[in-house]
């Protein structure tokens, strides 16, 4: 690096000086210096993650093996909490409901934004922009859930009002054990947030591929199957992973809309964790159930990672 003119007689530029110094330093010492200094930048994020992420997680896992009291010392009880969880006849019900909800979410709500996004890409750019604005306006989730709850009301809801006006028989909606879970999932269809991510990915696919395919005489469906979907695969894999993790921990929709009813048809694992911990003050059992959920989610993720490869060349 050249020393600026006029500076020769003055104090050397510190940066130039240190660079010269660094240039004179042996490579090993430089590497050690780099190794030490990078922790200064890692430390804040790492410590926050440790304190607010890992520490509560590990504590929660430990609580599952304890009789936990808010202010008294806890007692180690081994696997007693897990035994009680497995003995409880509500446990298979909540696991079944949660898996059912997740399957419905993946099957109905997860793939719709993908289809919509792919179809959007076939439209004019102005149309795409308008549709994106219309569909991707942020919606306050809780407000939406409460409004949908009353739409579903048997006697005073909008949906049955429309059905009655059109001369159709009314439906039980949230009061039917058969379709209550479906009713919880449907509001998610209007939340097209993930579509933004898919559209961004689709816009990065090289157009030459589609042009080449057109020259080959491929149909729209073949283009989607052989070009679009493989390019979307990494994003779909990631979104599916997040979807599984999020939906297995569903709480807001059933808690607000049905309270777990009718009967126990929409009672989920996290609702039971909440009941055990904050209603019964059985934090140990709540922790044990949360740990079982954690392990189940890990298993599902492993299965998903095994059978849904991100690598587009596989």
């Amino acid at each position, binding site marked *: 690096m050249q020393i600026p003119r006029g500076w020769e007689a003055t104090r050397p530029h510190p940066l130039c000086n240190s660079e010269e110094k660094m240039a004179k330093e042996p490579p090993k010492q430089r590497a050690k210096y780099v190794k030490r200094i990078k922790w200064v930048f890692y430390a804040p994020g790492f410590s926050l993650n440790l304190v607010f992420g890992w520490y509560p997680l590990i504590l929660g896992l430990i609580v599952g093996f304890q009789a936990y009291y808010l202010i008294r010392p806890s007692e180690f009880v081994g696997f007693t909490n897990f035994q009680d969880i497995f003995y409880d006849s509500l446990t298979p019900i909540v696991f079944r409901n949660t898996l059912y909800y997740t399957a419905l979410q993946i099957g109905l709500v997860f793939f719709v934004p993908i289809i919509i996004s792919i179809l959007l890409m076939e439209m004019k750019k102005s149309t795409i922009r308008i549709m994106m604005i219309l569909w991707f306006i942020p919606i306050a989730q809780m407000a939406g859930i409460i409004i949908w709850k009353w739409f579903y009301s048997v006697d005073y809801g909008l949906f049955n009002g429309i059905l009655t006006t059109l001369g159709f028989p009314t439906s039980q909606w949230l009061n039917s054990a058969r379709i209550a879970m479906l009713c919880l999932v449907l509001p998610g269809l209007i939340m097209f947030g993930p579509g933004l991510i898919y559209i961004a990915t689709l816009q990065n696919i090289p157009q030459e591929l589609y042009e080449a395919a057109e020259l080959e005489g491929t149909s729209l469906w073949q283009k989607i199957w052989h070009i679009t979907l493989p390019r979307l695969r990494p994003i779909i894999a990631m979104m599916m992973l997040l979807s599984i993790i999020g939906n297995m921990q569903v709480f807001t929709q059933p808690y607000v809309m049905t309270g777990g009813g009718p009967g126990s048809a929409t009672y989920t694992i996290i609702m039971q964790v909440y009941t055990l911990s904050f209603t019964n*003050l059985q934090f140990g059992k709540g922790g044990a159930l949360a740990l079982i959920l954690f392990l189940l989610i890990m298993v599902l993720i492993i299965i998903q990672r095994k059978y849904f490869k991100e690598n587009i060349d596989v």
Partner: protein
Amino acid sequence: MSKKISKWLGILVIGSLVISFLSLASFAQLGAGKKPPVERTIEIKCPVYFGFELKDLPPYRELVDTLYNFGPRGNSSLWYMGWLYSMRAFSVAYPSIKVIPVNDPWWDAEARERLMTNLAGGTAPAYYPVSLLGGLRTAASKGLAADITELVEQWPVKKYFGDKTLAVMKYKDKYYGVPMFRGGWDSGLAYRKDFCREAGIFDKEGNPGPSADWTVTDFIEICQKLTDPKKKRYGTVIPLKKGSADWYVRMWEFSYLVPFALPDPSGKNTYVSALNTEQSKRLIQLNHDLVWKYKCATYGTEIENWGAALQLFKDGKIATTITWSGPSFLARHCGAKTVEEAGGMVATTIKDGKEVLVPYSEVIGGAPLPKGPQGTRTNAISPPDIYGINPLMSEEQIQAAFEWLNWMNAVMGWEVMMRVDVDRRLNGKLMNQRGLKLPEKRLEFALNAPTYYPMSGGKSWLAQMEINNPSTARARKAILADPAAPLPEVYGLSIPNRQSYLDIVKMAVSEAVTKKDADIDAIADKYAQMANRGPFKGKDAEITKENWNEYWTDFADFCKNNFPEYYEKVLMGELWDKVKIW
């Protein structure tokens, strides 16, 4: 130079990390919260429900006159201003106790979680309703309420509490709580007087509404008459949303006399659910039939007990609703005679073909619960809610909190709010826990006053109901005349994980009501088993066969003397073999 800087930076970062971890470890759940040091001035934090500053208070006389004339008139701030006056008087009477008000409404949705977080963090207020922690039994067994046996035993006011109240203050023969007020909540039914008038439903005295001695059959008939499909109005509502099931099951307890729980004959656990007893199934069947057979009830998993059901009632969509503190609640909120005074206590009715808002007193009446199928109905006054005192405080603070609760809820604070001139009162004999002496005349006056809500001119509860809403007075008289069944808590028995159990009861009703062809027997068995394997699992070593013997023997005598049909058909015919484990 840069190496030195980075070296010191690194030491600083690592050092702060270490200190952070050590600090966190000291706050970890394994230890009890830190007890604050004992000071000459004892500070206690008391939950207040509005952020009023003392300087905002109006002149005392003006406040008392306003409270007397209207009662709480929708804007409850007046009552709480009276509360703050009492706090000021307390601080003069007890100069060594500093009361710090903290805005902490205990009825809002996050109250429970907030309290638990504060307890774990050592920042909880001096006292709190134990209902937020699952009841006194749960709070005491988990060390979340201080043992105040010594203080209660020396408390002269204790003799004025009945056995029921004393029983719910205790856990394993020790006192862990103070009642919120001397009386208790009565359970009843609210009904629309305007709809009853319209449908030609009058009691024996010619007042619109049901008679005080009505039965379940009358209830069904009245609900059917009050149902108008064209107006989408139903006779009653069956709320199915989970949570707040406590008052919902009042008919089980007081009308149908469904047992709170049965003894486990196997001995592995203490309790088993009574959900699949025949009497319980009859009540589940009633709920089902109200919707599908008699077609006089609306229902919904989106409808919760208090909020949505009450709103439907106020909007004129349902004609009756079971409500906690039925008559007394209505009486309190029927003081206003105009919509302006009523605040939020208004209902919708039709006048001259138009929908108008009117105050409660005009269109809402109170009735006792209907009698069960065997003519049964017990005194539907439940013991009062209980305050537990924060066990993390020092002994002096616990005593200070007890003094405060004594002042506010038992006698003193109530007197201040009611009538007594503050200056005169404070110049007289001041009370402290060690030498509680209140002139008998004042004590008698204060204890015959209504509960913690003030009423006009110091009239008795019943007298005030006659003024505000006569139907509630009739209902209250009927409730008071009903015989009081033995309370299990008096015999050391109580439902474990009560809220969780009631949620399961509600699940059973929910499943029965939402299926037209519901199999009631199967539903009852399913949820009984769920209760037995969930909230009822566990053995309480202190409950023996003697506890059960005493309770069921007394209960049998009570039923034999008061409800012979129930005694023969239900107790002896269906239950006795299940309960007689001694």
